[in-house]
């Protein structure tokens, strides 16, 4: 198959249904056997404004988006105004002719009567979106049955009549395009391998990871971009034995999960910046009470309410240092949807084995972007609950000590009501039994015991992952979804004899000092790449190793970066935000 790499942008107002078009096409492309990277750009409003949905498809795996478009689907005037520039010279425009009457008609465009065709063929004007998907599919030469099949699957849940109607609407779009599109399409689809991959957002992958790990309780308060995860899990509550509860606030959310976790359930909360700020006291409680808890922190631009629907990576140092007092924790930051699944499942094991709060640092760009992902091998998911007192054994003794001082710092857990023993959970400093104490010697011992867990935890840090030149001129050090842009930058640069490498850190705390230093040793210069203003990964590197990166590539305007941005900034030399 040719080296196909196309980008399609769907632009319009909130409420016009660009999502519908995007979702249909994404699925169809995937079924056609293509790799996909799709992301959305939307305002914090329900109607109006200017949103877009950008799909990139290729014959090779994708990690990021491109700036140049092969196809623009415009549902409003603004989409033409704002995005025509991004279109390649021979790119195609499909627009809603009932809404838009462009002055300069691009010869390579199709003026589509969306609502009209929808009404006549599907029965309802809203199916105009399906019409548009059909028209684009036709122009790009997609296999007709693939699209029909996708529509059937997507709309089946709303009844087969609706599914049928959508298939008809899509056909109307196809037919209309076949007859009326007189331009040239240089972005035809080949039929690839038969598609058998999922289309998954980061949020969906995290939710699936949690469910695979046996998450039995999630309490959360809605907040973009974490809402997707809780809503996904809420939807499964009838099918799997678990409870989801929308708490009255983030404080209740984390404390409900703390209650559930100490009563024996794998538990999780999800939130974003402001909401996480409210959880900080609960986090500290989880630390001292040694409660296993998974915290999804879906980053968006701050401070405070910030930019609700945009992306940033501004809470790395906050998540590592949050909470009064000192206690161990772990921080993970998956870079892709596939990884997000495995990392989340792993996070539950780490939380229970070490009885610590564990973060999954995600960001809006990871959360809402969708990728093609091979189905996960569920047999490979392991469940490690750590040291739990067996019920039988527990019934024998009569002096269960929830906070027994051990060499590893890990005390075997037991759950209230599961034996004749009583379990005492503490948020004050405490004796091994869990009862409060103010004794100075015990205090020091308990601090040591808790911190000692880090030794073992440090032994199983997820190692940094590298890609590209192994003795690079420039090492791009990065984390989270920004990996995608870096990885592609490496590909582009190294193709024209650049010597770039990207190393990203799937686990940021405890910090993988040794492996990171090994990578740094091989590199001529180190440039951190991240979505924030103060260069937090660079600061963390210095905090943990004493070294500062040479430069940083930063972005903090709420919009994700891609390879073009990374390479452009590298050319300018990057910045040094650390003085």
């Amino acid at each position: 198959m040719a080296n196909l790499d196309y980008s399609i942008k769907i632009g319009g107002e909130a409420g016009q249904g660009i999502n519908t078009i995007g979702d249909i096409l994404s699925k169809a492309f995937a079924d056609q056997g293509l790799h996909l990277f799709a992301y959305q750009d939307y305002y914090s409003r329900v109607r109006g404004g200017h949103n877009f949905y950008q799909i990139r498809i290729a014959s090779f795996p994708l990690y990021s988006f491109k700036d140049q478009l092969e196809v623009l689907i415009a549902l409003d005037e603004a989409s033409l105004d704002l995005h025509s520039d991004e279109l390649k010279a021979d790119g195609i425009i499909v627009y809603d002719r009932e809404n838009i009457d462009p002055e300069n008609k691009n010869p390579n465009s199709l003026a589509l009567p969306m609502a009209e065709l929808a009404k006549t063929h599907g029965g309802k004007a809203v199916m105009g979106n399906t019409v548009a998907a059909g028209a684009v599919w036709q122009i790009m030469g997609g296999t007709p049955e693939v699209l029909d099949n996708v529509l059937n699957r997507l709309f089946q849940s709303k009844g087969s009549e609706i599914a049928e109607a959508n298939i008809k609407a899509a056909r109307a779009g196809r037919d209309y395009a076949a007859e009326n599109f007189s331009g040239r399409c240089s972005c035809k689809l080949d039929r690839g391998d038969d598609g058998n991959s999922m289309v998954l957002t980061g949020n969906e992958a995290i939710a699936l990871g949690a469910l695979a790990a046996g998450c039995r309780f999630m309490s959360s308060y809605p907040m973009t971009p974490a809402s997707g995860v809780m809503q996904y899990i809420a939807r499964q509550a009838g099918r799997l034995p678990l409870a989801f509860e929308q708490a009255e606030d983030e404080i209740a959310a984390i404390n409900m999960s703390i209650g559930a976790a100490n009563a024996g359930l794998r538990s999780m909360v999800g939130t974003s910046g402001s909401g996480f700020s409210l959880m900080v006291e609960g986090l500290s409680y989880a630390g001292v009470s040694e409660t296993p808890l998974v915290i999804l922190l879906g980053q968006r631009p701050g401070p405070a309410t910030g930019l609700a629907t945009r992306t940033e990576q501004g809470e790395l140092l906050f998540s590592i240092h949050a909470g009064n007092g000192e206690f161990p924790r772990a921080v993970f930051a998956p870079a892709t949807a596939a990884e997000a699944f495995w990392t989340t499942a792993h996070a539950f094991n780490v939380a229970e084995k070490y009885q610590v709060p564990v973060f999954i640092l995600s960001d809006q760009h990871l959360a809402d972007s969708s990728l093609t992902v091979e189905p996960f091998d569920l047999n490979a998911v392991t469940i490690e609950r750590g040291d739990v007192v067996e019920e039988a054994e527990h019934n024998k003794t009569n002096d269960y000590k929830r906070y027994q001082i051990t060499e590893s710092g890990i005390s075997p857990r037991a759950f209230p009501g599961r034996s004749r023993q009583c379990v005492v959970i503490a948020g004050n400093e405490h004796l091994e039994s869990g009862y409060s104490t103010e004794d100075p010697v015990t205090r020091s011992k308990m601090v040591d015991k808790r911190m000692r867990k880090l030794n073992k935890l440090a032994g199983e840090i997820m190692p940094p992952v590298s890609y590209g030149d192994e003795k690079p001129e420039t090492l791009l050090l990065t984390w989270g979804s920004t990996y995608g842009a870096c990885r592609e930058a490496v590909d582009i640069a190294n193709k024209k004899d650049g010597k770039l490498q990207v190393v990203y850190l799937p686990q940021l705390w405890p910090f993988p000092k040794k492996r990171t230093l090994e990578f740094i040793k091989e590199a001529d210069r180190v440039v951190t790449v991240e979505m924030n203003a103060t260069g937090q990964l660079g600061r963390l590197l210095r905090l943990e190793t004493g070294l500062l990166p040479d430069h940083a590539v930063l972005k903090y305007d709420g919009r994700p970066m891609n390879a073009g941005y990374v390479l452009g900034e590298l050319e300018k030399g990057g910045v040094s935000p650390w003085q």
Partner: protein
Amino acid sequence: MAVDVKKYDLDRENTWCPGCGNFAIMEVFKNTLADMGFSPHEVLVVAGIGQAGKMPQHFRVNTMHVLHGRLLPVATGASLADHRLKVIAVGGDGDGYAEGGNHLIHAARRNIDVTYLVHNNMIYGLTKGQASPTSGLGARTPTTPGGNPLAGLNPIQLVLGLNTGFVARAYAGDKKQLGKILEKAIQKQGFAFIDILQPCPSFNKINTFKWFNDRVYDINEEGHDPGNLVEAFRAAGEWGERIPTGIFYEEKEERPGFREALLGSLDRPLVEEELNPLAIKEIMEEHL
């Protein structure tokens, strides 16, 4: 059916002040549980921070000593995990009506399967005497040295406005009534709320045992019908020469508690459900 209350014995020093109203509450609490046939390991006491919250540090029982004001959310999570546990939340008036006020609203709304006891001494005991939301108008405390500018909150009226199925006021000076109310509250399915008037001889020099003894009366003995919410609200409005105690409201038809409302047909405690990654196969494949 009763178990020996000695099962609850624990050899730990009690740090309350002599003469504190908490002693009576603790005694009744243990006796009631034992009389009702609960063994310590069948009960989970979720305790707030404050003198009241120290209660379960003094006897054998499952307990979670949580953050100031957060006992109800923790109790919510724990009771969902294993509904065979009898979950009881215990805290002070500062804990429950100040720091934790929001959770009271929503625990009531959810009708969580928890009995909630507020040891209401109308003061912050543990932190040495600051005003609480129930401190009376004019009360001089370290944070209201010129006299409290506010009238005290009426917790009974507040909770009645939340559609709570069981609402009562007890008094540490009347152990018999307290025991009776407590037993009913513990039997109740769903959320049961008891505000317990508790003298704090160390810091609340106004609302003493004597002060209460001169004022309290049992509304149920005076013929109040606990089935009538509006009547309950009216009765709860009284606070002054006479102070009503007893069961203000007890819903006639039991509603399902929160666990039942949320999890419906699921009988097995969540904590007993096996963890099996393969169980999500079907869900995952919907993404194909």
